[in-house]
C-alpha cells in the first residue's frame, strides 16, 4: 500500500482512538456518578488484608475519619454491599473498560501504521511522540487495573490528560509522515526515545494518581465528610491505595527515565561531540529527574510523607510537560525536532 494511504489510515485510526477514549471517559464518569452514596465497607472477603488489620500493626494505614478501619486495598473495598449495585452501573464500568481496551488496540494500530507510512520507528517528531506517550499511559493504566493496584473507575480521570494529549497532537502538532532529520538517523532513536516514551507515559499516569491522592486526602481531613453530600473526594478510592499506586508507578518509571537520560547522553556524544551540554531539553530532563528523585526521597523523610510527597510528584509531572512541550515549542536548542 502506498505510504500516503497508510499515513491517512493511521490518522483516521487516531481519530477513532480519541473518540473511543472520550466515550470510555464518559462511561467511567457515569459509573461514578450513578452510585452516589459512598460507604467504606471493610473487605470481609479478603483474608490477607484482614490479617493485616486484625494485628493492628500496619504502619502507614490511618483510620478513616469516620472511625472505620481504612480500606486496605482498592479492589472490593469501595464496592457497595451486594444487591445494591444497579445493573446499569455495573455495565457502565465494564463497557468503559472494554472501550478503553479496544481504543488502545486501535491506537496501537495507528502508531504501527504511522511507522510503516514513514518507513521508520513511529516516534520521530512531537506528533508521533505524543501519540506514543498517550498510548503508554493507557497501557500502564490497563496493566495496573489488571493487577488490582488501581480501581478501574479511575479511568475517568486518567483519560482526561490522554484525550488532551492526543487532541493537541492531532491538531497543533500534526505533521505528515516523512523521513527523519539526519541527526536523528541512528539506532539510538529506538533506545533513548523508546525509553523516554515508556517512562513519560508512566509518569503521566502517576501524576494523575498523585492529584487524585491530594483530592482524596483533602476530603479525608474534612471534619464531617459524610455531611458534604456527594463530593469528588468521597468517590475516590482510599488515600493509602492511591499513594501506594502512585509510588509503584514512579518506582517502575524512574529507573527507565534514568536510563533514557543516560542513553540520550551516549547518543549526544556520538552526534554532537559532548555527552552533556545543558541544552534546554537536557536541562529540563535533568530537572524532571531531580524532582522524581526528590519524590522518592520525600517518601522516606519524616514530615514529607503523604501530601507533601504527592505535591512533589505533581511538580515533577509539570516539569515533564515543560520538558516536552514548552522547551520544544518556545525554546530553540539542539533538540528542536518538532
Amino acid at each position, binding site marked *: 500500500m502506498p505510504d500516503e494511504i497508510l499515513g491517512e489510515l493511521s490518522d483516521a485510526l487516531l481519530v477513532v482512538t480519541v473518540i473511543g477514549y472520550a466515550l470510555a471517559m464518559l462511561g467511567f464518569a457515569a459509573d461514578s456518578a450513578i452510585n452516589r452514596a459512598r460507604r467504606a465497607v471493610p473487605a470481609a472477603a479478603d*483474608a*490477607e488484608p484482614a*490479617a*493485616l488489620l486484625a*494485628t*493492628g*500493626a*500496619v*504502619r502507614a494505614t490511618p483510620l478513616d475519619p469516620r472511625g472505620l478501619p481504612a480500606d486496605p*486495598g482498592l479492589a472490593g473495598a469501595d464496592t457497595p454491599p451486594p444487591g445494591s449495585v444497579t445493573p446499569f452501573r455495573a455495565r457502565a464500568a465494564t463497557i468503559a473498560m472494554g472501550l478503553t481496551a479496544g481504543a488502545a488496540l486501535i491506537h496501537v494500530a495507528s502508531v504501527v501504521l504511522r511507522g510503516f507510512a514513514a518507513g521508520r520507528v513511529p516516534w520521530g517528531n512531537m506528533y508521533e511522540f505524543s501519540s506514543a506517550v498517550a498510548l503508554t499511559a493507557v497501557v500502564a493504566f490497563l496493566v495496573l487495573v489488571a493487577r488490582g493496584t488501581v480501581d478501574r473507575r479511575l479511568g475517568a480521570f486518567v483519560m482526561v490528560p490522554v484525550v488532551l494529549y492526543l487532541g493537541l497532537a492531532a491538531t497543533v502538532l500534526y505533521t505528515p509522515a*516523512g*523521513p527523519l*532529520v*539526519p*541527526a536523528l*538517523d*541512528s539506532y*539510538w532513536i529506538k533506545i533513548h526515545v523508546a525509553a523516554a516514551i515508556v517512562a513519560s507515559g508512566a509518569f503521566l499516569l502517576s501524576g494523575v494518581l498523585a492529584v487524585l491522592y491530594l483530592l482524596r486526602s483533602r476530603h479525608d481531613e474534612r471534619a464531617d465528610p459524610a455531611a458534604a453530600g456527594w463530593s469528588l473526594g468521597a468517590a475516590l478510592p482510599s488515600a493509602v491505595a492511591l499513594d*501506594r499506586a502512585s509510588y509503584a508507578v514512579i*518506582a*517502575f518509571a*524512574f*529507573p527507565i527515565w*534514568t*536510563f533514557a537520560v*543516560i542513553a540520550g*547522553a*551516549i*547518543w549526544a*556524544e*556520538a*552526534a*554532537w*561531540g*559532548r*555527552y*552533556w*551540554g*545543558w*541544552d*534546554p531539553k537536557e*536541562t*529540563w530532563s*535533568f*530537572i524532571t529527574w*531531580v*524532582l522524581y*528523585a*526528590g519524590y522518592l*526521597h*520525600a517518601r*522516606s*523523610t*519524616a*514530615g*514529607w510523607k503523604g501530601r507533601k510527597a504527592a505535591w512533589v510528584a505533581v511538580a515533577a509531572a509539570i*516539569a515533564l510537560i515543560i520538558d516536552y512541550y514548552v*522547551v520544544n515549542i518556545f*525554546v530553540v*536548542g539542539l533538540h528542536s525536532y518538532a
Partner: protein
Amino acid sequence: MTLLEETRLSTAPAPVPPRPGGRSFRTTLRRGWRQLTSMRTALLLLFLLALAAVPGSFLPQRGLNPLQVQDYIKAHPDLAPWLDRLSLFDVFAAPWFAAVYLLLFVSLIGCLGPRIRLHARALRAAPPRVPAVLSRLPVSDSWQTTQPPEEVVDVAEKALRAARWRVVRREGALSAEKGYLRETGNLLFHLSLVGLLIGIALGGIFGFKGTVLVKEGEGFASAILNYDDISPGRRFAPDRLVPFHLRLKDFRATYRDSGEALTFAADIDWAPGPDAETRPYTVRVNHPLSSGGAKAYLIGHGYSVQVRVRDAAGQVALQEAVPCLPQNPQFLSSCVIKVPDPSTGQQFAFEGVFTPTTVQDPVTRRVGSLHPAPDLPVLTVVGFRGDLGIDSGTPGSVYQLDTSRLTPMGAGAAQQLAPGDTWRLPGGGELTLVGVEEWATFQVTQDPGKLIALLAGMGMVAGLCLSLSVRRRRFWLRALPPGQGPDLGSTVVQAGGLSRSDSEAFAREFHALTHVLRPPTAIDPDHGKA
C-alpha cells in the same frame, strides 16, 4: 507496635543521643554535620538544584550560544547587566550552582560512609532471634501437625535455603532474612553518582574541545595552532592532543524538495599520526572519526566561492576558495573577499551574498535563496577600494569587512556573477567567479573522563533497578513440641514475618511460603484464619 531490634529494618543510622557536657563548638559541628547529612537537607538541596537549573534553560547561555547572549544583552540594556552579574548567562558554571551540587555531594558522601559500614555489618550479621509473640507481627500464621518439631524445622530450613533466604537455626527455631540487595543497590546507585561527578570533573579539567573549518581539498592536522576555536580544560597540556590529520576530499549533502536536509557526509583521507598510512573514511552525523582518544565530529557546512582576482596590472592578486557563512536554512551565505596585496594600486575587497538557488524579488531587487542545493548559484557583491585596516595591528575577523576607510566601486552598485562570469572592475582589475565549492566544520573533542562517566551511569541504572524492586524482609518459624502449645496432642507451628515495604506483595509471598511448608494434613488451631 514498639520498634524492637528484631523488627527494625531501617538502614538509616540510628539517631545518636546528644552527649552531655560536650564542648560546645564540637557539638555544634557534629550537629551541623548531622543536619547536613540528613534526608531532609538532601531533599531541600535536591529542590534547590532543580530550581537553580531553571534559569539556565530559559535565558540564553554563553556556553551554548554566545551570539544569542549578545543579542539578549542588546535587547535588554537595563536588565541584562544585573543578570550577568548574577551569572545568569552562565548558570551551570556559576559559583552558586556549583555550591548547591557540591553541598549535595558532601551530604551524600557524608551519609554514605555510615550506611556502608552499617550494611557491611548487616551483611555479616545473623538474622535476629524469633520474637516471643509471632502473632503480633504484620503477617503471621499458625497450624498444627503430627510431624515432630525437628522434622518440621528441617523441612522449613531446607525450603527457605532453597529460596535463597539467609537462615539461622537457634534452639529449634528458625530466623530467616532476605533482600540485602536492596541496600546494596541503593549504595551502588549513590556511589555511582559520586563516580559520575568524578568522570565529569576529569573531563572538564583534562579535556579539550576545538573547532576548525576545512575547505574541500584542504588538509588539517590536529595541533593547537591549527584550530579556529579552542576550549581546553584547565589542566590540559597541548602535547596531549592526539596528532591525527585529515584531508577533506568532498562534502556531500542531500536535501528534500522542501529544503530539509536528508544526509550529510564528508569524505576524508585521514591518518592517526604523522607517519601513518592514510585511509579513507566518511564522517557523518552520528558517525564521528575516532582516533586514539580523540573524536572528530561533523558539525556544520557551507559554501565557498572559488574566485580569481586580477589587479589593475593584470597580475593575479588572489586565487582561492573563500568560505561564505550561511545565514538561513536555505543557505543564503554572506561572503567577504579581501584582496590585501595587489601588485599596484590600493587594497580592495568585495562584500555580498552567495545564494545557491537564487531568486530575486522583481520589485525590491533583493536576492534570496529558495533551496540549499546549488541549483542556481549566484554571487552578488559590491566592490570597495581603500584601506582594509589589516595593517593597523588591531585584530579583526576574516569574515567581516571594516568599510570605514573604504570607498565603494562604481557608486556601490551590486554585481551578480554566475560561475564562469568575470566582472571588469571600474578602475582596473577583474573578479572572476571560477566555481562553487563546499566546506565543513569539524569539532574535535578529547575527554578522559568519558568512560568513568559511562560506567557510573550504568551503575546508577543497575543500582536503581535493584533498590526499587528488592524488598528487605524477615521470616521466623517456631515449632512447639506436643504438650507445649495450645493443643496438647500435636506439634504447633507458628510462623511470622515482616517487610520494610510493599506489605501486600510480602503478604502474598508469606502465604505462598507457609502454603508450601504446611503439610496437607495440618489442622488450624485458630478458627477463621484460613
